[in-house]
């Protein structure tokens, strides 16, 4: 299917719309639809879900008729490391504390760049950023984050 689409971008976008739209309708089938004058919580989501799926069908159909450019290279490494480091930060924040979580976030995400290498200036910048976050967010703005979490303090 996807291979014969002349515009792969439209094709995949359409597939996403159809999938999300139908899932929204499927999950929303339990919500009361109500009547026209007393709309239930299921009314608007169902309308939107079908509408989205319809746009998806249009997009898929169009992808077979209209030419488009290929999707191009995907920055898999950047995608994985940037999203992964953010998740890692979330996982470590409460258990290991802010400092280790920040170290993980900064080092893992920085590794996504091809300019990434260990050097003194970058290390100094890292320390400065850690100090800035600890001072401004924890001390200054009072965001409840422990600098070192339960892993270290027991």
């Amino acid at each position: 299917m996807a291979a014969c689409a002349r515009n792969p971008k439209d094709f995949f976008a359409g597939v996403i719309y159809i999938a999300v739209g139908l899932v929204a309708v499927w999950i929303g089938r339990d919500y009361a639809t109500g009547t026209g004058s007393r709309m239930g919580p299921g009314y608007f989501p169902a309308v939107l879900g079908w509408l989205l799926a319809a746009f998806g069908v249009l997009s898929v159909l169009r992808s077979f008729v209209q030419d488009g450019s290929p999707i191009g290279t995907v920055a898999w490494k950047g995608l994985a490391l940037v999203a992964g480091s953010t998740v890692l930060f979330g996982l470590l924040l409460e258990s290991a504390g802010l400092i280790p979580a920040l170290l993980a976030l900064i080092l893992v995400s920085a590794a996504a760049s091809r300019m990434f290498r260990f050097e003194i200036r970058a290390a100094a910048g890292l320390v400065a950023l850690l100090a800035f976050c600890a001072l401004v967010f924890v001390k200054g703005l009072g965001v409840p984050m422990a600098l070192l979490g339960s892993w270290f303090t027991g």
Partner: protein
Amino acid sequence: MDILANLALGFQTALGLSNLAYCLLGVFLGTAIGVLPGLGPVATIAMLLPVTIGLPPESALIMLAGIYYGAQYGGSTTAILVNLPGESSSVVTALDGYQMARQGKAGTALATAALGSFFAGTVATVLLALFAPPLADLALKFGPAEYFSLMVLGLVASIVLAQGSLLHALALIVLGLLLGLIGTDVNSGTARYTFDLPQLSDGIGFVIVAMGMFGMAEIIANLENEATRTTMVKSVTGLLPSRADLKRIVAPVLRGTALGSLLGILPGGGAMLASFAAYSMEKKVSRHPEEFGKGAIQGVAAPEAANNAGAQTSFIPMLTLGIPSNPVMALMIGAMIIQGIQPGPSVMTDQPALFWGVIVSMWVGNLFLLVLNLPLIGLWVRMIAVPYHQLYPAILVFCAIGVFSLNNSVFDIFLMAGFGVLGYVFRKLDCEPAPMLLGFILGPMMEENLRRALLISKGDPMVFASRPISAVMLVMALALLVTVLAPAVRRKREEAFQE
């Protein structure tokens, strides 16, 4: 004279010592971030929004507005000095501004941009003060049917005038509306699309969506092709334009201001469209169109005046109707909601100090930009050269901590990562994510007004057609859609965005 009393109240609020300081801080941060590579205004405002939550509402909005036009100014600076427009509205500034810089006239170009922006900002402030009250009065008479139709019109207009595929824009609006429904339904108490997760019962914070779709996705996209940027301009001299230069920019600035103010009010208009339109108009009226693209000072003056005027008048629909015309205004509305203010026409009557204070602060902010930024140009030049690979981990840090600080919830960080991936996927598929944010903000309001309108009409959908104002707005929305779909107009539109 009501308007004088109103402006006096505005000055009283905006010139308070703390608000003055927040305005200055916002303008400064905005310019700094606008100058730094790889951060658009939406990501910037989303990133700094959590910091403003602890402030009083008027200070928070004054600071956010300052960030917005500061970022715009910073964007023009990079456009002129390194030929890299910091954001879409300064794309055309780069055409002639960079050429001027190459000819050693960087100082003149920057000063032209600053003076043009300041003049346009002053005019737009007056326009805002003149036109906001009658519009809000009109909107106060709106019932739910009119509101629903107004939102439909706003959403449709915002995509017609924006860049990219119409089909995808429509689909993303619907997707945004759906995402906006996540959480507990206010009328029935039903938890919708929460997957039994308590963290989702209050819905998804719009800051999370904005930071993920714009901030994180931008980082991933920038990592695709890392370019190092170099400034050839090491120091900028000759900031004061000559008398002859001043003479040449008067007319373009006036024309740019007029066009920008007009286009800014339209939904979806705002700064970008204004600057593009002003540039092509200037080229048409010029007696020497061949100079454009080779360092014509008019090619800097007009679009810079227009984008600033447009940026400011786009506050009119936001402040008076509660309708966002672009993603930045969507963030402003979100900021109001976080502050506990219901956006809409009642803001002006319920919170006059906030309303007029924000308006006057825009003029004050523009004054700050003019007075502060030209002397600070050396600092900006150094910031332009900050390598992106050292910068983006820090952006990520501020996003992650900022999102966490909203609700002290780790779950929100995971959500942001998810939206980051989604934003990147949409980018790769050429789906511009801006309409999704507009839909997301308007989703709950639209459902609420639809519900009320149908409740009043006892379920008769004809209520939207039988009430005249509502019918006119729906017809306008439909007409807009049809015009864009017409082949001739479609080609023209594509041409316009090609330039």
